[in-house]
């Protein structure tokens, strides 16, 4: 939109033809018009006089004399007679008079009449022109007053990729982000974040409306989703921890390329997880099989870099966030924190991986659920550490998971670690987790997360994150289905 505005020139008509000036012109023309009309009337009078005189001159010779009242000055009359009824003294102009007979006078008068008529016609034509001018001025004045705008746009063929990347953000599902878009991410980030924030606002409003409706209905679902959510959160914590450790081992500066690569793998994994989410909960058995598949994918460390996958990852994360929000008031208050939202994101990342091991962690999940349900702390950060502790205290399966996700986790850990200036201790890790989501590690996910940060900073985090999660809502999450 900005580009379109830059290309075109919008000139309000009022600037070209100022309203007052146009109106003044209209008035001037009207005045001239009225003057001309007065002259026209005068001419008409002259012509009628001439005609009458012709008649009179033709009639007078019929008699020898005519009794008349002869004026004497302006205020007195003398009774008298008209004599020499066929002799007329006609003024030709410039002090010249001629004596003419009636017939000749009539001819003179007729010639005069013709001259008058031609003048009359020319005056009429002038008046017509003035009328047209007045109407033009009037239209211009009214248009300028209305605020009519003249828009000139140079015809420029738009850059295809630009258009694509521009159209990407506003869509609810930007799975079609291409490589080119990545390049333009830096440029588009601002715009995108703006649009996303707007979308977030709208979705937040929707969700809040939903809240009121659904809060009462979803307790059972909430319990179940709590379970899964707890699992995911614990998984996320695990992954983060590992990433942090890896980061300090490897150093931060090496990670950019690896991050993107790892992002891709991660996104891929998340995509698969999303697919899993679509299944109903009763099919957890199948999930187990799929989880192994996912594991394999993980190990493969695929090179697919579609931002769409990353987005889906963030989508599912946001969905999880949403479900989390719907659970309880505490969670809502928790979600209000920016950090919490980001944390949730991170947790979701790990949570999704956790999800791939539903069976292994179910018991833990339940315990976690209880811990979460009982938690009345307003800080999600506090809850998360609890979850994390529980998770860490958990079985080897978790470590297994962490090991399996090792190839990708270091990248993630690096990504996470990169965000954290200091993250060795757990507690600070929790607190600094919000930094994770700040713009840097994942190009694609940056958009999502940074956008999350922006929006959350301005509004309630949970709903906004949920709203962002709802944008790429095509992979319908299990939780979402439960909710509805």
């Amino acid at each position: 939109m900005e580009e379109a505005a830059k290309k075109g020139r919008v000139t309000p008509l009022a600037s070209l033809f100022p309203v007052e000036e146009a109106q003044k012109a209209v008035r001037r023309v009207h005045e001239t018009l009225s003057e001309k009309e007065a002259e026209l009337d005068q001419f008409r009078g002259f012509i009628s006089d001439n005609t009458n005189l012709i008649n009179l001159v033709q009639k007078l010779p019929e008699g020898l004399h005519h009794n008349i009242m002869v004026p004497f000055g302006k205020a007195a009359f003398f009774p008298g007679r008209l004599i020499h009824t066929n002799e007329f003294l006609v003024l030709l102009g410039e002090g010249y008079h001629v004596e003419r007979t009636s017939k000749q006078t009539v001819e003179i008068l007729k010639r005069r009449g013709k001259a008058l008529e031609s003048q009359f016609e020319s005056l009429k034509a002038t008046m017509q022109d003035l009328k047209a001018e007045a109407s033009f001025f009037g239209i211009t004045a009214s248009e300028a007053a209305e605020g009519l705008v003249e828009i000139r746009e140079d015809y420029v063929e738009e850059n295809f990729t630009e258009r694509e990347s521009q159209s990407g953000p506003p869509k609810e599902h930007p799975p079609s982000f291409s490589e080119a878009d990545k390049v333009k991410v830096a440029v588009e980030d601002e715009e995108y974040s703006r649009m996303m924030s707007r979308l977030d606002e709208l979705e937040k409003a929707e969700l809040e409306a939903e809240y009121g409706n659904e809060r009462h209905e979803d307790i059972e679902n909430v319990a179940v989703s709590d379970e899964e959510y707890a699992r995911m959160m614990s998984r996320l914590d695990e992954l983060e921890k590992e990433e942090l450790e890896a980061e300090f081992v490897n150093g931060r500066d090496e990670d950019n390329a690896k991050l993107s690569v790892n992002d891709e793998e991660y996104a891929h994994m998340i995509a698969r997880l999303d697919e899993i989410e679509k299944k109903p909960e009763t099919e957890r058995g199948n999930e187990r099989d799929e989880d192994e598949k996912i594991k394999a994918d993980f190990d493969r460390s695929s090179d697919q870099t579609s931002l769409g996958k990353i987005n889906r990852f963030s989508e599912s994360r946001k969905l999880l966030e949403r479900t989390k929000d719907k659970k309880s008031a505490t969670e809502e208050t928790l979600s209000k924190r920016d950090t919490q939202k980001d944390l949730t994101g991170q947790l979701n990342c790990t949570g999704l991986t956790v999800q791939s091991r539903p069976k292994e962690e179910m018991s833990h999940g339940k315990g976690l659920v209880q811990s979460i349900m009982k938690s009345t702390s307003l800080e999600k950060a506090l809850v998360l550490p609890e979850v994390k502790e529980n998770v860490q205290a958990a079985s080897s399966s978790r470590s297994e998971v962490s090991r399996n996700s090792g190839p990708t986790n270091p990248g993630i850990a690096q990504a996470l670690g990169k965000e954290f200036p200091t993250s060795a201790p757990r507690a600070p890790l929790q607190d600094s987790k919000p930094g994770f989501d700040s713009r840097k590690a994942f190009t694609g996910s940056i958009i999502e997360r940074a956008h999350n940060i922006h929006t959350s900073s301005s509004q309630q985090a949970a709903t906004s994150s949920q709203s962002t999660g709802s944008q790429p809502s095509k992979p319908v999450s299990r939780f979402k289905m439960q909710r509805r």
Partner: protein
Amino acid sequence: MDSFRQEKVQRYEEFVDKRLKPDLVKAIAERDKVFEQQKTFSDLRRNIENLEKNSVTSLRTMVNLGSEVYMQADVPDTQRIFVDIGLGFHVEFTWSEALNFISLREEKLARQIEEYTRLIASIKAHIKLVCEGIRELLQLPADGSLKGPVF
């Protein structure tokens, strides 16, 4: 303060331009009409006196038929004259009666003229007063500014 002053000045100017000056113009126009009438009657009187002096009984004249086309006319008896006394009436007078009437008429016209003159004078005085007020309003700040450069 300045804006208040300016507003007053503007109001005064408006009053002058919109009320007093048109009134003045109208009064002057009316007076001019009366002047003309007066002139007419004085001309008539002169003519009648001339006629009387020369004992003119008949008259040959040119009558304007319209658009400066003249025709000869003859007045056989100049004793009787019809004078316009106003409201579209013309009264038949003898010369002496006519002269009498004309003098009366002239007096009346003179009085009218005097009235108009007084009216015009009062309007002019009003205009002058308002102008003086405006000048006073403007002069005070003007004086202040003038004093500045002096010192």
